[in-house]
């Protein structure tokens, strides 16, 4: 059920979104611009799971904040169901888009009971009264696989997996359409991670949810996502459906990322990705193609010329090797 009809209007759309921060270096240093998100266009159709992968500092979390309305983009537009986010008030946006964060230890208020935490969205939106809240909390806890008796306990009395279920319950109690999952399982143990991934998969099917699934774990992304976008230094450098990306990665960065996945298969050894090691400083991005200092295939052309996004039916890729007008174009139909 990973296929999605092609021409449904997107439920969430980013049009040339950019976010620039002014960063001071040192106490008296002059502020310099840091482009965290650079001209990103993405769209999500209803019911699909878009995986967003990339190294720390590439801008994935900034993008998530923009989608949640927690940060305003410097340029471009974010549209939910064709309506711009900026035109909607925070509350109505929160009914449609909800987050699940990485660390269930810091994202739940330790002084509030589970009932308070999960029912908070209902109270903020002024929906129903106490008996209705209790009924709804009971229902949603059941859906995420927690017994109703946890309502009166506190986060400190729960395990990491249970806390993440609470975070999911809180995100879903308003029946949102879109859930932004920012590394939802990376703080969890392996046996708990698989439970949460199964739960997220079931909830998506049951409620027709749309996920933006941010993760650095490519094996998890491959398992859950229907489409994948790869981000590097604020730009989407490749985007394709999950089979295309994992079977025929095109961008050299995507290829290196895929090679770095360590599957539990003994005897294969640790791969040599041939990636230059240093992730560049986003305040001082490299000239030309931003990936060129680490790219094993880079030439002088890459140092001086930024590649343009190439969109084909295989998806999007931003690399001179795939630009028919570039001198580096290699005509591989693969």
């Amino acid at each position: 059920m990973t296929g999605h009809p092609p021409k449904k209007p997107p439920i969430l759309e980013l049009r040339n979104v950019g976010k620039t921060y002014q960063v001071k270096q040192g106490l008296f240093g002059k502020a310099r611009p840091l482009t965290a998100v650079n001209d990103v266009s993405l769209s999500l159709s209803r019911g699909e799971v878009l995986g967003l992968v990339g190294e720390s500092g590439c801008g994935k979390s900034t993008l998530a904040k923009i989608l949640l309305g927690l940060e305003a983009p410097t340029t471009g537009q974010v549209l939910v169901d064709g309506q711009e986010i900026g035109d909607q008030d925070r509350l109505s946006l929160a009914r449609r888009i909800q987050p699940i964060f990485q660390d269930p230890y810091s994202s739940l208020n330790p002084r509030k009971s589970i009932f308070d935490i999960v029912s908070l969205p209902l109270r903020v939106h002024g929906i129903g009264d106490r008996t209705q809240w209790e009924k709804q909390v009971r229902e949603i806890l059941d859906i995420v696989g927690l017994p109703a008796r946890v309502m009166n306990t506190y986060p400190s009395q729960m395990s990491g997996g249970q806390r993440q279920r609470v975070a999911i319950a809180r995100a879903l109690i308003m029946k949102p359409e879109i859930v932004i999952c920012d590394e939802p399982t990376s703080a969890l143990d392996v046996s708990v991670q698989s439970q949460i991934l199964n739960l997220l998969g079931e909830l998506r099917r049951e409620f027709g949810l749309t996920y933006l699934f941010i993760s650095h774990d490519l094996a998890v992304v491959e398992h859950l996502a229907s489409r994948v976008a790869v981000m590097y230094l604020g730009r989407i450098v490749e985007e394709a459906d999950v089979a295309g990306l994992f079977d025929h990665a095109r961008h050299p960065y995507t290829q290196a990322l895929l090679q770095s996945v360590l599957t539990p298969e003994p005897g294969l050894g640790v791969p040599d990705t041939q990636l230059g090691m240093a992730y560049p400083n986003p305040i001082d991005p490299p000239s030309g193609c931003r990936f060129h200092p680490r790219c094993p295939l880079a030439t002088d052309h890459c140092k001086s010329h930024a590649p343009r996004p190439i969109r084909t039916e295989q998806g999007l890729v931003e690399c001179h090797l795939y630009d028919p007008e570039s001198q580096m174009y290699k005509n591989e139909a693969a």
Partner: protein
Amino acid sequence: MEKPLLSVRNLTIDIPVGGGTLHAVRGIDFDLNRGETLCIVGESGSGKSLTSLAVMGLLSKTIRRTADRMDFDGTDLTRATPRTMRALRGARMAMIFQEPMTSLNPAYTIGDQLTEALLLHKPVGREAARARAIELLEKVGITAAESRLSQYPHQLSGGLRQRVMIAMALMCEPELIIADEPTTALDVTIQAQILRLLYDLGREMNMAMILITHDLGVVARVADKVAVMYAGELVETGPAAEVFNMPSHPYTRGLLRCIPLPGKTERGSKLGTIPGIVPSLVGDVQGCAFRTRCSYAEAACHGDIPRQGSGGHAFRCIHEDGNRHFEEAIA
């Protein structure tokens, strides 16, 4: 047979807590030869970090450590004085911690921190120590090594800091390195590079390494030997290829089923899970600790659990081959 560099028998760690004693590690045995990599794999709270701290003699005073034997190249670690341990640590056995952000001192330069152990343990001068530091920084792949010596930890990225930690551990050419989740805080691309580096350096210097991790992918790729730890016990040990190809303890098999395998696990299918939670280890702990989550648990699992297996591949379970064949037959 070569005499192992490190030999541990019946290591037990008890922690006094409010309501009694927490039996955090219970009777674990392992041997490690020179040049060999042992991976201890387990989930949080399984006791894997405590085990490594026990070997290094770094447990806090309130924690009780006992062992029938803990022998490091002829030195009995169970009787070693603090002075002996200090002479060993940093010089002959070194540790790499998980968080490169917190385990470097922010107030000292990289150079000071790198040369400290060498100046302490070996009769070398400042110049020689500096030269060694530069040599090792280059070896771990840090460019402009000389200029890094005067930098402070906050001026380096996470990946670079972890490399500095590794270089620091290698300063005195230790015979044993214990790395506790050395790549968990890093990006996947950096993780692969750091693991490769550790692996190559280990081979080059004939170092023994204990690598502690929760990541079965890492284990499969770098381990010679694997020790699977659950709730304070080693439930399965053996050569990496055997443990992964013939996982015999139900817990080991359960863990392997939890991870999606690119190209093998069907996309979007349900992943395996291990229901239930880790039991409390406070008070009297008897029988198999995994029985509360095991689908084959029966009354006999409350009693003494035999150790089975042959040829270095061992596991603790009352069921013959941990019901592996049974499972394969119904699959």
